[in-house]
């Protein structure tokens, strides 16, 4: 990302809270799924967003594309605000921004043929109809490695990997600039995962796309990302270039994550185990104030950690880290 250029996507102080209960006689409970998150994505960049289950990464993805409203904060894509968009503005937005979903089984309407599914955005956005639409559908399918004969078939006739290709074709058909991919390969078998990862990278090169790649698999994220952001309990705890983050993680949580991943090479794995032999068993507890990670943090020996939440700030290494004592 060159500093002079404004980012294609800018996310500023986004919060998203969920209120549960609150019915008659039930207690209201507020969950801060996303809690004050800011970052930018440059045009042509792939930003990887990692975090454990419940870290709020998927919620953040849905807020960025405008499927969920933010409780507060702004998202702008190419200068256009996502938040307040309604009707026509929302459609204009979704011609530039699309999403690839996680579950190849639930992300396609079982009642519609592949043609119906892919024609939907063309019709709704007034892009093309009839023979023109068919031609575009064939092109999108072809770009995603599917034969034109797929058009007349229903989702249930395809395997998981093929369904994911259809989902990618659906996102691609409006020729967006920016695609949010929410765990696009986590439901797939290993050998199919590689096919889809390669496809996403080929499409990026062919169409000049920008990606937000949300995943829990640290190796996949390293493989596809230019830059990586790590999320923990609704907050960003560290962002850095992929190379830097994996080589020298600065936040204790990132360090713990990277330490925990086993490696397929038995010798490398034996090395890793030696290094982490003293790995503690953590007891996550809710923290009232202070750093969200401090209950699990091996370094949190200072009273400050329990009192004040550290902001995401530039660190000497070039990372941005939310920690009072990084490194």
């Amino acid at each position, binding site marked *: 990302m060159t500093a002079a250029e404004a980012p294609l996507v800018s996310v500023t102080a986004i919060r998203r809270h969920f209120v549960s209960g609150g019915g008659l006689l039930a207690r209201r409970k507020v969950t801060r799924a996303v809690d004050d998150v800011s970052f930018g994505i440059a045009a042509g960049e792939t930003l990887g967003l990692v975090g454990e289950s419940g870290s709020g990464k998927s919620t953040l993805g849905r807020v960025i594309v405008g499927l969920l409203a933010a409780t507060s904060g702004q998202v702008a894509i190419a200068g256009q605000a996502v938040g307040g968009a309604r009707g026509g503005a929302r459609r204009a937005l979704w011609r530039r921004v699309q999403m690839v979903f996680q579950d190849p089984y639930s992300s396609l309407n079982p009642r519609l043929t592949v043609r119906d599914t892919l024609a939907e955005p063309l019709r709704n956005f007034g892009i093309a109809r009839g023979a023109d639409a068919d031609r575009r559908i064939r092109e999108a399918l072809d770009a995603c490695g599917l034969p034109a004969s797929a058009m007349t078939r229903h989702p249930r006739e395809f395997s998981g990997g093929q369904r994911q290709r259809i989902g990618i074709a659906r996102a691609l058909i409006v020729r967006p600039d920016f695609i949010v991919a929410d765990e696009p390969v986590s439901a797939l078998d290993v050998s199919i995962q590689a096919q889809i990862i390669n496809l996403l*990278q080929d499409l990026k090169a062919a169409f000049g796309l920008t990606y937000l790649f949300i995943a829990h698999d640290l190796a996949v994220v*390293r493989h596809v990302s230019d830059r990586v952001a790590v999320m923990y309990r609704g907050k960003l705890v560290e962002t850095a270039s992929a190379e830097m983050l994996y080589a020298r993680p600065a936040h204790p949580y990132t360090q713990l994550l990277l330490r*925990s991943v*086993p490696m397929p090479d038995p010798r490398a794995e034996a090395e890793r185990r030696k290094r982490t032999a003293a*790995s503690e068993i953590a007891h996550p507890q809710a923290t009232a104030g202070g750093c969200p990670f401090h209950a699990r943090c091996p370094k949190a020996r200072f009273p400050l950690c329990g009192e004040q939440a550290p902001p995401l700030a530039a660190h000497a290494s070039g990372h941005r880290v939310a920690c009072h004592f990084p490194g």
Partner: protein
Amino acid sequence: MSAPLLSIRELGVSFPRKEAPSTTVVEGVSFDIMPGEIVGIVGESGSGKSMTARSVLRLLPKSAELSGSIRFRGREIPEMTDEEIRDMRGALVSMVFQDPMTSFNPVLRIGDQIGEAIALHDRARRGRRALRDRVAKLLALVGIADPAERARSYPHEFSGGMRQRALTAMAVANSPALLIADEPTTALDVTVQDQVLSLLRELNENSGTAILLITHNIAVVASLCRRVIVMYAGRVIEDGPTDEVLTAPRHPYTWSLLQSVPRIDQAGTRLTAIKGQPPDPATPLAGCKFHPRCPWAEQRCGEQEPALSPIGEAHGVRCWLPMNGIAAAAQ
């Protein structure tokens, strides 16, 4: 050398269909597990790894047909009476399943469910008090704080990681000789996965429990297992020491699988994807099951299925043209 703890020969699992040949999901699977050994079975969905694991305790779906021999300490499991197999389940051989969220009965207390596992095989018929103490000890063993108090919790009051630990505690309650773990870490976060792997390793080291680990994750095998069995389309296609199989694979499928996994310790190069899809078990396929996806397949690969044959010390491969280990590693 001691006798194997578990010895499987020519295991087959198939599902009969009306007016069609039955669907075979496991065929010709043979391997041994020595006392105290940790063996991993790795494969993708539909490879037959879970069915293989479940046939050891005869926990297959009702409609499944089992063939071949499964000997545990010399006794044929398929020939056991229902009572004999029940006595073995949870006592000599126990099992941990994939999803800790659904493996506990939601309406019973965690402690009572672990206690049930003990009481079912308790010849001494110890009292409630002794049972409670034993449950608390087991929960403490798997690293759950406040074990006596937590035993009174219901499953929905436990986090995913705690449930998987409690499940493990239940599985080892009677100090089994063999623990079968079916994707025990698949549903867990990576930090919790690391803890559960350490727990399994400790159990093996401290009590000598043999472990059969079923997983799709090669790294988990690398972390825990001395020996690995690779399955594809219901067959064992490679079987050998983890160090050898994962660094110098001899079967093209094993090699391709390793190539298609992104590595956390290496920057991104293009992945080598395996083309196509695994075969559908309902449609018969002649020859080697991998030949349609294999870059090196020859004519005979499509005509005749190779046997699992030895290719080194304790290493076997089911391929007409096994790869040269050194060359593959260099690639």
